[in-house]
């Protein structure tokens, strides 16, 4: 039932985007998130959207798959859009029905914010879809290495991240199993008042928490048994390799930012 959720999932592949070094991808996505806020007019937003679509095409991810997997998030996007339509009261009045008044600026702001939101979600999803959790953590750890000087526990943070990423699908499967067991016992999540529905979640959450804690304990014991003692002096089996295409991605980003600055409307 939850098999369609794709947030945080990795789909192995062989595209240009898949082959990139996780460091360049992480850096790119991180900077891209900041760069999104440079857009402030129709053409820059259109450029961002077009660029994201291009990335999805290059990564060879099917749009139908993305759309299905991100449905819950698309709901939020639509919600934001409607909020802006209704509550922004600037510009020319376009439409009026009883107490609902829709203004030109509301529509524009709504669409801009939705695109911003959509582009952020899509780009981060492309990152997780095309990069295995292990690579993401490795990349993150290397990128954060300079902060070790500031006594930031980089290795521990990376480990925490990889463990949580690793357990997302496991917990999903677990939820699915418990859900089926409770449905078979006549639990009903899809009908009734809101109060009843909230109550119906309890039989799902309690077993999930119990098993998550048990798993955490088992994992801790398994790690200790195998003599795990943190990052000091650990070597890696997988070495990260920075290639020309990674340098190209960074230049591509610089180019994108330059174009955004150029097309951006002055304030």
């Amino acid at each position, binding site marked *: 039932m939850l098999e369609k959720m794709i947030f945080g999932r990795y*789909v192995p592949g062989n595209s240009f985007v898949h082959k990139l070094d996780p460091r360049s991808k992480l850096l790119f996505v991180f900077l891209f998130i900041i760069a999104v806020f440079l857009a402030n007019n129709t053409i820059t937003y259109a450029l961002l959207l077009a660029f994201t679509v291009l990335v999805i095409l290059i990564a060879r991810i099917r749009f139908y798959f993305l759309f299905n997997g991100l449905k819950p998030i698309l709901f939020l996007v639509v919600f934001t859009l409607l909020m802006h339509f209704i509550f922004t009261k600037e510009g020319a009045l376009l439409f009026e029905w009883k107490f609902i008044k829709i203004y030109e600026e509301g529509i524009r702001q709504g669409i801009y914010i939705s695109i911003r939101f959509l582009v952020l979600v899509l780009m981060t999803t492309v990152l997780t879809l095309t990069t295995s959790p292990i690579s993401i953590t490795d990349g993150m750890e290397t990128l954060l290495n300079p902060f070790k000087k500031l006594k930031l526990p980089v290795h521990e943070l990376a480990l925490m991240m990889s463990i949580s990423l690793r357990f997302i699908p496991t917990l999903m499967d677990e939820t699915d199993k418990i859900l089926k*067991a409770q449905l078979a*016992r006549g639990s009903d999540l899809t009908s009734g008042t809101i109060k009843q529905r909230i109550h119906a979640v309890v*039989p799902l959450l309690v*077993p999930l928490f*119990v098993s998550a804690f048990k798993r955490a304990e088992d994992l801790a014991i398994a790690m200790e048994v195998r003599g795990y003692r943190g990052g000091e002096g650990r070597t890696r089996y997988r070495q990260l390799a920075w290639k020309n295409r990674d340098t190209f991605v960074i230049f591509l980003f610089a180019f994108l930012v330059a174009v955004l600055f150029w097309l951006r409307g002055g304030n």
Partner: protein
Amino acid sequence: MDISFQQVGYSYAVGTPFEKRALYDVNGSIASGSYTAIIGHTGSGKSTLLLHLNGLLKPTDGVVRVGDVNITSHTKSKELKTIRKQVGIVFQFPEHQLFEETVEKDIMFGPMNFGVPAEEARTRAHELIKLLGLPEDVAKKSPFDLSGGQMRRVAIAGVLAFQPSILILDEPTAGLDPRGRKEIMELFYTLHKEQNLTTILVTHSMEDAAQYADNILVMHEGRSVLSGTPEEVFSNADKLSEYRLGLPRTVAFQRDIEKLFGKSIGRLALTEDQLAIAVSQALKEEGER
């Protein structure tokens, strides 16, 4: 209630890169009041098949018929609640579904969902606690304070409590000690006989299939490949090994003896008692010659 499958096919995650076909063209029928074992190697689709029996999964193709309800890909979830009341599933490691504060309340969860009054549900809970051989005082304890074996029994009670007429068991004894295994399997068999249940057992244990089932359905790579009485199925050793399945220990032993004597020693021995009788008879005959 009779159950039948007509050309049932199922794919997981349709329309995503994870799409995976789990069932192809499964046909078969299960008569009301019979005890059917579904056996198959890991990943043969047996667990997927049983999820169709109360509409937790709807077939991608074909029809699953339970009693007089047809489940197809178009069946609406609302129509399934009546089936779910009739079909109880004891999942693998059912203790993972426990959540209430007390054992009593957890057992009452199922019946209350299906509209049984609280008082009656409580009475049933206490009866089941006794029936499953749990100590009386367990009713007011938290299910999480019990031992693994006791949790398993409480979870089974939680399914039996809504008195389904079809009972589906997905490896109900996995991870139990041999004695607990036997007790639970015997209990299910007694219930099956006493309450005239239609029982479906998904198992890896050829011994359990041989001993309890009236019929056996063999699954292999998402298809139903063989079905019949235990005698019919287990006399097909070659085919079974092709499906990566073994013989029950008793049958394997019988085959070894027959090889030793160079002749058949009668009907297929499905239980240890039958085997003992067959072997002693064969030895007697041998001695008389």
